[in-house]
């Protein structure tokens, strides 16, 4: 019987995350809520980036749309999460349909640039929305769930995020091994061949893109609740870049890698920024070392169990 080291890493990480609020430090509960929500976003990007080969440089747009949907509905008095969260999902799906429908007709550098351009357009749209704070962003009232859940309790939101992360990991695993997932990976390997085999690749890519957008949008709705505040910074292109770094750091197309990448990046940011405001100066070289020395990311350093092909 072979020990599956990767499975152990996944289980230990999730169990450790589940235990953090038990320490009673609200600071850590809040920090790791944020980390887990970004981990969800990174996992969703990994679906299209790591498995589908779509280098989307505008993933923060979906986070922002999810968050702004919650904010705008809240501003007009709709605070029920039962309405706001599904609304975030719908808005993110529509946005992904539009962005994907246009940008997936291109490839390579053009695809990167178009996704980036769309995200920046949304960023400036948010800046121009003076009603909702413009550049400064706007405070929001946390969503309510008919008195069943109280999101003002950091622990409640924490465990929603934890459950969400577990669910995303589990569903993502099913997805990438399903026939759809195999098609997505086939497109990454050799799109021309996929078409010659009879796959209408555009449709599969678009569906993958929308799934990723929806997951990121939902995470955005939760992020808005976590900070009780939204601002255009959520959608800035540097944020899209950070999300991409989380995926690369942890390991593209590895399922769990983006979670490790997110934890590492956001913790390093947190720790380094407490010593110096020039923390990027130290984080940059660290990233270089990891990306150059471990091309398959941190998770790639953990040996995979032998699988039957």
């Amino acid at each position, binding site marked *: 019987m072979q020990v599956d080291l990767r499975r152990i890493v996944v289980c230990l990480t999730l169990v450790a995350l589940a235990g953090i609020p038990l320490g009673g430090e609200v600071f850590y509960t809040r920090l790791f809520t944020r980390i887990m929500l970004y981990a969800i976003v990174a996992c969703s990007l990994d679906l299209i980036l790591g498995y589908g080969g779509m280098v989307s440089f505008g993933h923060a747009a979906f986070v922002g749309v999810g968050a702004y949907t919650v904010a705008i509905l809240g501003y007009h008095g709709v605070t029920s999460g039962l309405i706001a969260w599904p609304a975030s999902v719908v808005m993110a799906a529509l946005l992904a349909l539009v962005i994907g429908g246009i940008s997936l007709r291109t490839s390579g550098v053009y695809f990167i640039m178009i996704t980036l351009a769309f995200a920046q357009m949304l960023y400036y749209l948010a800046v121009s929305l003076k009603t909702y704070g413009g550049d400064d962003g706007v405070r929001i009232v946390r969503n309510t769930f008919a008195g069943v859940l109280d999101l003002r309790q950091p622990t409640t939101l924490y465990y929603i995020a934890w459950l969400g992360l577990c669910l995303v990991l589990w569903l993502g695993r099913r*997805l990438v*091994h399903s*026939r*759809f997932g195999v098609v997505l990976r086939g497109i990454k*390997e050799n799109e021309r*061949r996929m*078409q*010659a085999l009879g*796959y*209408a690749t555009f449709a599969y890519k678009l569906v993958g893109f929308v799934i990723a957008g929806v997951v990121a949008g939902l995470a955005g709705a939760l992020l808005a609740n976590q900070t009780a505040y939204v601002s255009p910074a959520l959608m800035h292109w540097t944020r899209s870049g950070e999300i991409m770094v989380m995926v690369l750091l942890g390991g593209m197309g590895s399922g769990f890698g983006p979670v490790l990448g997110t934890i590492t990046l956001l913790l390093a940011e947190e720790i380094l920024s407490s010593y110096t405001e020039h923390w990027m100066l130290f984080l940059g070289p660290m990233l270089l070392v990891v990306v150059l020395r471990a091309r398959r990311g941190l998770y790639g350093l953990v040996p995979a169990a032998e699988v039957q092909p």
Partner: protein
Amino acid sequence: MTEPLLEVRRLVKHFGAVVATAALDLAIMPGELHAVIGPNGAGKTTLIGQLAGEVRPDAGHIYFAGRNITALSVPRRAALGLARSFQSTSIFPGFSTLENVALAIQAHAGHSFRFWRPARSLTHIRHAAVEVLKNVGLAERVVVPAARLSHGEQRQLEIAMALATTPKLLLLDEPTAGMGLEESAQMVALLYSLRGQYTILLVEHDMDMVFALADRITVLVDGRAIATGTSEAIRANAEVRRAYLGEDDSEVGRAQR
């Protein structure tokens, strides 16, 4: 009289001032192995591209199984039963040999917007894939990652993927490209075994192979079909011999000996 399975009528394609296809007519009859030969730059690759749907013709029509497919996309044509192999090996290097073929079978087993069941649990697809691999002589290499196959084996896999889609017509683009003598001989044996089972359009450089395999041969020069006929007729054709003179006169001559 039987209808052609594939019919090309007055097909035209220009790239700037270069004429790649010049009012080409071509008919592939059901069950035949039809070879297209021609010197470099005769427009063979462009023809394959137009038949497969990757290159849009400027004028003319392509009929497949009685249907005008001139405007159809690559995947639509593939779904109708037009399978192809590529001149430069085009496989999924990160997948196992079996997964490569399974992906080809899956393409013709209904849509793949199926998100739940693991693909590897679909035993009927995997069994069918193993059968195809047996037919092309790759039964021993089922679990090997495709990237680790030898060049010749990758070419065989390329054919296997085309066969796995249970095509009506096989478009084979220089299946022996870049192969050594021994590998080439294996490929010829494989194609020989497919003869009669499938309708095949074979684009090939290797004259010996073409004359040994083809039921009919079309000679393409400057985008035009200058002759179509059996091996004997093509060998005897004066215009064909002239077309190859200066270009590579040894090829037709060698094939004759």
